[in-house]
């Protein structure tokens, strides 16, 4: 701890000095605030410019000096009604696939993770400790290790190139995390609440549905949002396990646009990317507080 800088009690200078000191402190404080805001604004600038560009560039013909938009147009969005080139699948079908993948992920996470988490959190049975440990160990097992053998499994089950395959794989890999998060929410429900239901003559199942589940609604909502965005955004499994164009998602679509149009048509590139991210942005604006809570339990690497 630094030593006292100004020993006011023994100071004989009086009020003048005090006022002077207070002014000096205020100045220092202002400088610090200025410095902190400058730091935050400067370091956030690339992010703001990046996402801003995505929007501006999609609606403009040309950007001067990379950042200044000129003229308004919607021609970059022509991919909504015509194919960028004849090798591309129908955009709406691709979007529908992406939506199905996201929805499937959400459904599995809620329908499978919730009961499992409840059982692990609240019920006594022989293998409980083992299951709990298993969930943790699996969660720390990296996805890249399993990617290759999953390819084998999917090909054996004839699920390669199908959305079902991808979402089962994704759900399988996310399940331990989901169970772990949901278990945390169930742990937070007081035993007394559940006990009172049992005393009133309800069965365990009835208490779960009527009393406990409403208590963990925020948890379920957070999980649902998280899995939806996660499924919607999926890149690596889609690229690796799906080649046929009928099963493409928007990830494969934008990936292909990068390959075909990167230096030719940035307008098209940013417009498709914006189309892809738009639902996520909407979700994000309204639910970032939930998402912050789920993030720390660890999603992707980086």
């Amino acid at each position, binding site marked *: *701890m630094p030593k006292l800088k100004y020993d006011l009690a023994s100071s004989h200078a009086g009020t003048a000095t005090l006022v002077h000191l207070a002014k000096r402190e205020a100045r220092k404080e202002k400088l610090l605030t200025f410095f902190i805001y400058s730091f935050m604004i400067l370091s956030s600038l690339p992010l703001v410019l*990046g996402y801003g560009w995505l929007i501006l560039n999609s609606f403009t013909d040309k950007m001067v000096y990379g950042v200044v938009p000129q003229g308004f147009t919607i021609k970059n969005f022509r991919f909504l009604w015509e194919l960028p080139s004849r090798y591309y699948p129908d955009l709406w079908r691709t979007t529908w696939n992406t939506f199905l993948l996201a929805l499937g992920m959400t459904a599995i996470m809620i329908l499978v993770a919730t009961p499992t988490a409840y059982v692990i959190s609240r019920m006594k049975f022989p293998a409980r400790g083992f299951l709990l440990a298993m969930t943790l160990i699996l969660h720390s*097992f990296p996805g890249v*290790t399993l990617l*290759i053998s999953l390819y084998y499994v999917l090909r054996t089950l004839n699920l390669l190139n199908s959305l079902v395959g991808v979402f089962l794989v994704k759900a399988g890999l996310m399940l331990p995390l989901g169970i772990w998060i949901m278990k945390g929410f169930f742990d937070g429900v007081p035993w007394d609440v559940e006990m009172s239901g049992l005393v009133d003559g309800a069965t365990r199942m009835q208490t779960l549905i009527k009393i406990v589940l409403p208590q963990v609604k925020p948890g379920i909502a957070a999980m649902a949002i998280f899995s939806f965005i996660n499924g919607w955004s999926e890149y690596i499994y889609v690229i690796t396990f799906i080649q046929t164009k009928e099963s493409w998602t928007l990830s494969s679509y934008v990936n292909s646009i990068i390959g075909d149009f990167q230096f030719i048509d940035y307008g098209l590139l940013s417009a498709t990317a914006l189309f892809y991210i738009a639902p996520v942005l909407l979700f994000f604006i309204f639910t970032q507080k939930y998402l912050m*809570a789920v993030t720390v339990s660890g999603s992707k690497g*980086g």
Partner: protein
Amino acid sequence: MTKKRGHFMIFLLLAPALLITLTFYLVPGILTGAMSFTNMDHRLTWNFVGFSNYVAMFKDTILSRVFWNTILYVFGTLLLFNVTFGLLIALATSYIAERHGEKPSLFFRALWLLPRFTPPIVYGVIWLWILDPTRNGLLNGVLNWFGQKPVSWISEFPMAVIVLTNGVIGASFGMILFYSAITSISREYNWAAAVDGAGWLHRIRYVTLPLIRWPLLFVTAYQTLSLLTSYEYILILTGGGPFYKTTVWSLYAYNEAFGGYYASYRFGYATALTLGLVIVSIIASVIYWRVFRFREMMSEPKIEVI
């Protein structure tokens, strides 16, 4: 309800999760082990070759290069962004929240969280534009403003690019944990320090940092493991190139199996590589466990994550 029926109900509730985990986690896990002893390729035939994949790993000159890339990438990103920059944002936003309320602080934190929830390929598009080698990109557009020649950022500074792009995503993890740790520090400590004449920097050094020691260590250890296995953004931005300059271990395994243009499908060797990576991860966790003395944290939790 009899005990037997109770167990049956429990089993029923667990069955879907068990089935999925078994098929898409445990079986692949065992398969991975088995496959690493074969020379399997895209035909998926089981042809056991003993330890030859593991022997090949030690002779692989590319792998030794990949290993150093991995070290540089993991610790570069970790030290510059995931810990340091995450901490700086957390400190700055907690300062802003204290003086000017929750709203401006939340704005900055949400902004930094956004990349994590952006579809990876869209995030890639944004960076491809920022780093574009022609004058159409952001950086070169600005250089052009000053009359400078465009620079091909990605091929000239590949390692810096992947550290930066992963760091911008990674920073939010530390930011959230540090922010909640900092704001949960009881205010009396800071007031006491202020009365003693400590300025903002001194309060950070002598009050805040010692009190968020565990989150700091936790983020360091946890994010090391995450970074070791993250390659998605590298795959999108550089694909591991130019000439293996940005190929990290996990990406090397991925490319050996599904590698872009030359599609090698060397499943046997690639699985051996991923198991090698698992061993590296385990060693890293043991070291962290020892050095950071996490056992102390287990007995006395200082912060609640979820």
